[in-house]
């Protein structure tokens, strides 16, 4: 178990991203899909931080800071939408919300 290199972190980030995407594909509940989206965002953050560390630049971390903020916003708005969707359709299943307009 030597010191992890950039490659290790990147593979880890890629796998995390893939799992998140797989979750979006496999699960049918919008709420869980949302959680999986968060996983994907975090995967991206991981690779950004890793790059930042291995290239000795702080800029990448600033970027992650922004991503976290925007993710928080997104969760807030997304969940609000989810709640109003649920009110209207009484479901959070993705298959049952297929029309793009109401």
């Amino acid at each position, binding site marked *: 178990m030597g010191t992890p290199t950039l490659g290790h972190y990147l593979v880890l980030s890629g796998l995390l991203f893939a799992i998140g*995407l*797989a979750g*979006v*594909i*496999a*699960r*049918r509940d919008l709420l869980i*899909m949302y959680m999986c989206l968060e996983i994907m965002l975090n995967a991206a953050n991981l690779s950004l931080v890793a790059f930042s560390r291995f290239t000795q630049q702080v800029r990448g971390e600033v970027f992650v800071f922004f991503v976290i903020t925007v993710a928080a916003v997104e969760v807030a708005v997304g969940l609000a939408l989810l709640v109003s969707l649920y009110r209207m359709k009484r479901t959070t299943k*993705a*298959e049952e*919300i*297929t*029309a*793009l307009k109401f």
Partner: protein
Amino acid sequence: MAWLLLLAPLSSAFLVWVALRRHPRASQAVSITASLITFLTALGIALGRIEAPASLAWIDLPGLRVEIGMTLDALARLMLLMVTGVAFLIHVYSLGYMAEDPGRGRFFGELSLFLASMIGIIVATNFVMMYIFWELVGVSSYLLIGFWFEKNSAADAARKAFLANRVGDFGFLLGILTFWATCGTVAFHPEAARALAGNWLAPIVGLLLFCGCVGKSAQIPLHVWLPDAMEGPTPVSALIHAATMVAAGVYMLCRIFFVLELSPEALSVIAWTGGITALVAALIATQQNDIKRVLAYSTMSQLGYMVLAVGCSGTTAAMFHLTTHGFFKALLFMGAGSVLHALHHEQDIWRMGGVGRKMPLTFVTFGIGAAALSGIPGLAGFFSKEEILQVAARSQPVLFWMAAFTAALTAFYMTRITLVAFLGQPRTDVVRHAKESPLVMGLPLIVLAGLAIVAGYPFFGIVRYLGGQEAGENSLLVPAASLTAVILGLVAGAIGYGRASREPIAIPLFQRKFYFDEIYDWTVLKLQEESARLLSWIDQWIIGFVLVRGGAFVVSLGGEVLRLVQAGNLREYAFVFALGAGGLLFLLFGR
């Protein structure tokens, strides 16, 4: 000053068109003033008081310079005088003839437009300028023939006239283009035309230019519009379709004679076209019952004479006859118009009879015109026809005999209509109640009758003005033959129609005008209609449906297939997206 010739009638036309259409009195006044101004200007020009102005560049681009200018040589001055004079008289005559028509404001505006265009042709300094006004007389003729546009026959006749002229103009334009390409200019420069001398293009240019004349001067085979054009008001028939516009073709031939004379082949085609037209039209005229149609065919036949003269290199003779014919044919039409006016537009000579007694002035003047047209010695027509027969006899003997025979026919059909319409007993009630026309209509008749008598004499000076007769020996055979012909025609007419109250002879070929209309209906029109319909079908089905909609069908089929995938299911989209992203990773970062 000379610009007044164009500006006066143009501004009158514009004024009437924009502001005065609804005000007949004002538009009459404006239009007549304009025509008087042009006549006075033409007079000033003829007397040498007014000089030709400098030309204006209408188009000035590398390789092409088109000018609007004025040629005021003897040819143009004579023609100007004749046209503006007759036009003024007809404007005056129209005051009476159109007095009851509600649309006469428009009528006078269109007359002014015609006058301006006609003058443009006469003074043109180059081919393009002539073509411009050439087309414009076509337009005004279209408008005036279709003046009573509610009448289906008038509307159709107007369209027919424009189209027949267009076909001729097509050739004319090609001729102009060929001339320009060979000689490098569009101006009437005899020196420039030298590039054509001996060139194989010379006869082609000549004949293409002649096409314009065939259309405008109603030569066979584009003559079919002229008889129909009689649907227009009679002053229009007198001015445009007898005295001036139709003669413009002949004037044009004289103007461009420097091109024609380079090619004897073209000249003989022209001569033959004229001769045949003269003969055929005269034959048809013998069997028509509509007084205006007889005169129309007679016009055609006389135009054939003039074209024949040009074809025999007799431009002076042609112009001489053009002028005298302008006088007496306008007179005849106005006389006929006076009769129609009195008879409430009854045009069939067999439903007239004895009109002469009711309308003595009209009868006398019409008689003078008929005599002049028939070529009775002492009147204008005799002299000018004589000139034409002389040049024909010199260069085309066969055509001379045809022309002489035509002269006999002319005398015959003029005798026929005069006898049937004016003498004998009234055959209908309308005639019994007819009254002589008002003085505004009578005065122009008297003036023109005077001209029809004196215009031919040497002292009147038309031939001298044009620079004298063509050189060559005058043969005695000509007056002998033509006199014989006239007498034969008169006698035959008198015998045949002296006491007739209905048509004694019937020749269907002549009555049906040699079946020209039928032939055109069956060939040109049908052919064009059918091919148009076929092409429209192809356009709609092959191009519009198979190609365009077929393409659309393939696309929409693809759309239907893809729609199965795009069901709005978020997770499917995500999966396809993931597949794509993975694929891209392998593609882009291939090691």
